[in-house]
């Protein structure tokens, strides 16, 4: 079976992002960029399916400007076979990304599409569900376990009360949660090899999609700051403060 993985280039998770002084947008100049952590888990899952002999090919796609080829190369170094870059300027919205991925799905006919459950920049948590809706297939979101069966996949999902397991007919969409796996590090030889793996570039027009905008960014602001309070000396003092000052117990 063929597995398609979608990856996104985002600000590295260690970076504390701030609003620009004029409040027009976030400050992204000279900020370290990386593959979205949930997407990395998606790549790892696909590569493990290949190593287990379940998947025959792992294709990785990314949507964005030229720089996201860097993240495709990272995925190739982790073990994906070839890359597809859909070149789009600016920041396409989740619905547009889902439409572009639908085009990639139509061209590649994968049996399974794995995406991260959310990207840590927009925190939208939408693209996988939207792709599944647009292609009319099942979705296993927030996956902590994925088992491929005969023409179907069982996905264990992290839900509010615990875990839920669903079975989806293939092809299907899976979005990864944190505990699906622990991604490997790319080895130097694999990073070198990844440079020679095929990477195709497509335009939205190639996929029959005209990019639209539904939501405009009016501005950004820092959240209400919490200031540090006081240090108490003892448990006794803590209980006293909670009872008599904060009045919360």
């Amino acid at each position: 079976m063929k597995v398609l993985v979608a990856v996104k280039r985002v600000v590295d998770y260690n970076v504390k992002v701030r609003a620009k002084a004029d409040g027009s947008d976030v400050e992204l100049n000279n900020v370290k960029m990386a593959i979205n952590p949930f997407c990395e888990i998606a790549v790892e899952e696909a590569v493990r399916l290949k190593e287990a002999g379940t998947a025959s090919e792992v294709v990785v796609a990314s949507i964005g400007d030229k720089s996201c080829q860097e993240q495709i190369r990272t995925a190739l170094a982790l073990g994906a076979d070839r890359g597809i870059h859909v070149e789009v300027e600016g920041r396409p919205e989740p619905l547009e990304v889902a439409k572009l991925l639908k085009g990639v799905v139509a061209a590649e006919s994968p049996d399974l599409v794995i995406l991260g459950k959310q990207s840590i920049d927009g925190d939208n948590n939408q693209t996988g569900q939207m792709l599944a809706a647009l292609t009319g297939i099942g979705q296993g979101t927030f996956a902590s376990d994925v088992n491929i069966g005969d023409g179907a996949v069982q996905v264990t999902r992290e839900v509010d009360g615990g875990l839920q397991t669903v079975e989806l007919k293939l092809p299907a969409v899976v979005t990864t949660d944190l505990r699906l796996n622990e991604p490997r590090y790319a080895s130097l030889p694999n990073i070198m090899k990844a440079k020679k793996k095929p990477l195709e570039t497509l335009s939205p027009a190639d996929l029959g999609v005209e990019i639209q905008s539904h939501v405009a960014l009016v501005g950004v602001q820092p959240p209400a700051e919490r200031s540090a309070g006081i240090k108490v000396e003892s448990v006794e003092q803590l209980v006293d403060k909670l009872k008599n000052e904060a009045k919360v117990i």
Partner: protein
Amino acid sequence: MKTLIVAEHDNQTLKPATLNAVAAAQQLGGDVDVLVVGSGCEGAANAAAAVTGVGSVLCADNAAYGHQLAENVSLAVADAASSYDCVMAAATANGKNVMPRVAALLDVAQISDITAVIDADTFERPIYAGNVIATVKSSDSKKVITVRTTAFDAVPAEGGSASVQAVDGAHDAGVSSFIGEEVAVSDRPELTSASVVISGGRGMQNGDNFSLLEGIADKLNAAIGASRAAVDAGFVPNDYQVGQTGKIVAPDLYIAVGISGAIQHLAGMKDSKVIVAINKDEDAPIFQVADYGLVADLFSALPELETAL
């Protein structure tokens, strides 16, 4: 302006998150109706009808909706959405699963996790783990929105007398089925709606030590939570996780025990009214957001705290 709230429920009862979503819808102005999609969900529909401010309740009751499979539920919601300007749900695991699918079926954007309503088209929502609050303006004529429940005070669950109308037509997409679930049964309040939360982090060292939190939780009627580190280490199940990608909580009192305070964890709890941190590392970033910090070894502080309460 007509808004349809997609209820969060377990067929018998309405989950409190629905009440926060109704509150957000009221800020938009206009009529607020509730859609209950489930199987044998009359109980939940009647509960929704009693909620203050609800105009009418639509009830789509069919076996296909029994386990809230997104493939089926989204079709029912998209169908019902045709006569509304806005479809809203709480940003719970279920809301996050179903609503983007609804938005795609309607060919509109979803605005995720709103924390404020500015006007009928403009909303605030946190991005980058809550390090930045974005103001966004939607140009879609029909809106699909999920609501961060902690940002809107719940409307009263009683006091309303809406009518309940059955919605015809069953949708079974036929691509998914429910296999099973492991749901923790607990007498404690739900993490996302508890007024007191006590959470443990990596400093707890193992799952057994979480019993140190239980006695305190019992005395305070608190829910127990955890940092990602504690969940990843297998100390407690995933549904305990508080943070950017786990649950968002804003109780009156949040007690962080043995939690260093990574930004991803702070994103899930920094809107709590009062924050207490207990950590033996006095430089832990959690102290920068704590109203009351206690630098102490948790293994001596927790039994002391339990006794003192």
